[in-house]
């Protein structure tokens, strides 16, 4: 019962915050409600018994990405101009609704094989085993490290003063 209540509260808060990000005219408030959306999603991960992922979500999304976005908002001084809609407002709404309809129809009509096994409880050691252990994702982990390095170098070069 507690799980249901938690899920519904977090889902409503997350969807409402995501709607505010898109609909608010003030970019700074949109960035703050983006943080609320990320925190609600971290709570959703906890209800899915993915504790490690929830902690990483708070650290990376709220701690790094949101701060980066707020920094960019302050550096570009676009707050006065706000965040207006473009000419595609109505077609974009139709496309988004169509996408939601198709995706939810496909998801609800697929016979997923739900497993009755209870989830692993401390997930951190198991994820470490999957990432670094035998037959795991070690190649992808190292590739992603190179990708992060390339992204950081690219960002530094892009914003460097001439």
């Amino acid at each position, binding site marked *: 019962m507690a*799980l*249901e209540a938690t899920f519904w509260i977090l*889902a409503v808060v*997350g*969807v409402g915050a*995501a709607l505010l*990000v*898109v609909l608010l005219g003030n*970019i700074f408030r949109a960035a703050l409600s*983006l943080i609320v*959306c*990320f925190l609600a*999603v971290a709570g*959703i*991960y906890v209800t*899915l018994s*993915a504790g490690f*992922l929830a902690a*990483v*979500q708070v650290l*990376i999304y709220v701690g*790094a*990405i949101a701060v*980066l*976005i707020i920094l*960019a908002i302050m550096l*570009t001084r*676009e707050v006065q101009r*706000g*965040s207006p*809609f*473009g000419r595609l407002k109505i077609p*974009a*709404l139709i*496309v*988004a609704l169509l*996408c*939601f309809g198709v*995706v939810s129809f496909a*998801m*609800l009509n697929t016979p*997923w094989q739900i*497993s009755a*096994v*209870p*989830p692993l409880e401390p*997930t951190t050691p*198991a*994820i470490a085993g*999957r990432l670094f252990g035998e037959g795991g*994702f070690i190649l*992808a982990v190292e590739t992603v490290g190179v990708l*992060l390095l*390339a*992204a*950081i170098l*690219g*960002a530094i070069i*892009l*914003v460097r003063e001439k």
Partner: protein
Amino acid sequence: MSIGLGHYLILSAILFSIGLYGALAKRNAIVILMSIEIMLVGVSIAMVAFSRYVVPLLLTGQVFAIFVMIVAAAEAAVGLAIIISIYRNRETIDATKIDLMKW
């Protein structure tokens, strides 16, 4: 009614569609980037839900969600660097006015 896989999938579809709407309809480049982050988060919810309900002992979905997070961080860093550099050169980040490469 107990919470099942379908609830999480619908939640992820709603978040993805909201992000898609924002990315298509907004003119401010930073808001477009925030909408893309919402889309990535929605997909991550779907993957963690599949991992929890379909293969609870393999955790593959959670590993994929970690990779999605790393890619989102890299994308935010590069995207915001590009936006700041465009703002320095052209004094605007309105996506409809950045049409230098438009044919």
